[in-house]
């Protein structure tokens, strides 16, 4: 009996281990299947690069949404990366142990807060602040803008980015640092010339993962970004990212023809971008980890 159980488990477990890969494929296949009404009837270039969004007339140009997503995400990464990198370098290279432990808790808590909480904070603090900032620049803005979305996103992705960068730093052998310090280099010189150089691929991978995390974030961005389907011209303009498009319109998607296919296509775009960036970044990280082991 015990051997029977063990043998059946040995048969079952590989199926289980194949399950995650299967789910990835299933999600991709399901989204493609549900969006085929729109993907197969229109040229891809027209879907992705046309800017007319008139679902009731059957015109689905995703450009405003893709541009909105890219704008918000890229600004968020630009805001988050320098702070995350600097903080991670400081924590791993010169911070006292107690501070390091405290920072680990802060990163965990920040990473665990629900996105709707970031959204509430964004509405209460970031949106008015961006509105005031726009006033200083002489731009008319309600504050619900690309910049507000980017600030909220930057706060949301920085724990992820910091966590990965810290892990990459800790995989760099201490002997390299010691060699540099023993030659009389300061902490900063060691960090810049040894640690950062060695960690460069990992830092890029962390950036890509932060980008992909920001790319698909929905509720928090939706609450502060304004949701106007026009290509944003400045950071103070409202934008309309893809995830917000899906979340805002699920209610009507059954009443307008092909609307559901269009929303599923939006989800498919998100999935493809996220999978591509994850595969690229994880490959770099796995290689780094293996080199360290």
């Amino acid at each position: 009996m015990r051997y029977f159980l063990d043998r059946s488990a040995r048969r079952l477990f590989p199926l289980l281990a194949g399950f995650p890969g299967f789910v990835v494929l299933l999600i991709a296949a399901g989204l493609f299947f549900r969006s085929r009404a729109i993907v197969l009837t229109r040229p891809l270039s027209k879907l992705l690069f046309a800017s007319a969004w008139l679902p009731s007339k059957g015109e689905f140009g995703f450009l405003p949404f893709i541009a909105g997503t890219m704008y918000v995400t890229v600004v968020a990464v630009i805001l988050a990366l320098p702070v995350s990198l600097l903080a991670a370098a400081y924590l791993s290279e010169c911070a006292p142990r107690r501070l390091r432990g405290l920072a680990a808790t802060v990163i965990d808590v920040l990473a665990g807060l629900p996105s709707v909480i970031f959204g509430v904070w964004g509405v209460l603090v970031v949106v008015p602040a961006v509105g005031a900032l726009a006033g200083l620049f002489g731009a008319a803005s309600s504050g619900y803008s690309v910049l507000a979305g980017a600030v909220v996103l930057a706060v949301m992705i920085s724990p992820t980015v910091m966590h990965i960068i810290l892990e990459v730093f800790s995989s760099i052998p201490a002997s390299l640092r010691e060699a540099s310090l023993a030659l009389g280099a300061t902490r900063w010189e060691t960090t810049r010339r040894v640690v950062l150089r060695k960690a460069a691929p990992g830092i890029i991978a962390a950036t890509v993962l932060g980008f992909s995390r920001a790319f698909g974030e929905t509720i928090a961005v939706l609450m502060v970004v304004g949701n106007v389907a026009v290509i944003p011209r400045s950071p103070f303009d409202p934008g309309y990212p893809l995830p917000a498009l899906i979340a805002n319109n699920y209610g009507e998607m059954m009443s307008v023809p092909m609307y559901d296919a269009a929303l599923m296509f939006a989800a498919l775009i998100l999935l493809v971008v996220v999978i591509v960036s994850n595969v690229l970044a994880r490959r770099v990280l796995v290689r780094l980890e293996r080199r360290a082991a």
Partner: protein
Amino acid sequence: MTAVAAAAGTADRRLARRKRADRLFRGLGLVATGLVGGVLLLILAVIVWKGLPALNLDMFTRTPRGGYYIGREGGILNAIVGSALLGLGATAAAFFLSLPLALFLNIYRSRTSRFATFTRFSLDVLWGVPSIVYGAFGFIIMAALGLRASLLAGIITVALLEFPIMTRAMDEVVRLVPRELLDASYSVGATRLETAFKVAARQCAPGILTGVLIAFGRGVGDAASVLFTAGYTDRVPASLFQPAATLPLAIFFQIGTPYPEVQQRAYASAVVLTVLVLAISLIGRSFSRRYRKTVVR
């Protein structure tokens, strides 16, 4: 001034410059670290400051009455119960997939086999999939099964969302089980299955619990995946096939109304959700430190 003294002077100046660069780096690093911590404190402070005054007992004991969303009386009991049921259901479902998988990856397979690496890789990809995509996928499953927006559909979707998070967290701890412990178990005649569930799982119990709590916190806090799948209702769900309200969506809908009284309640609901998630994450962290009596060292 002699040439030697001049050379020493430049060297001194260069050293001073290098030291200044070093101090600048430390200073900026400290500022950046403080900024991250400060933002967290700011978020928590704003949520508590805006939400605490609006908090009252009615919120926990009553469901929304007629006209709740224009400022009449009621509470968010529907969302609290809905989130609890959804989180518990989804976490339980994910647990039955995650634990065997994490054990399998580390005990049946050599830890670095190509198959195990591929599985970890797909788990990482799944982890990165945005929750709105899970929501859309859950919607497709619902359509395929003929379900409507319901507690069950929400549980399935959130379980899928939690599964990679939980498995990777468990994998990290099961990976650390010493080889000798497993060998000791085999040598007294235990099969792999028994070793996995009776020895390895017990050894990692605190870490496994931490993984479960992390996943639970993520599942309870997620809004985008339940938007299509669990729906929203003012009643407490009586069966798996009825729609269920959730706390994140309750906050989202209430803050979206133009009435200040209702927005106040959104802030209060945000306090409830924040405290809930913080408590879960802190309990989870303390578990991995305490409760080690079953751990062999």
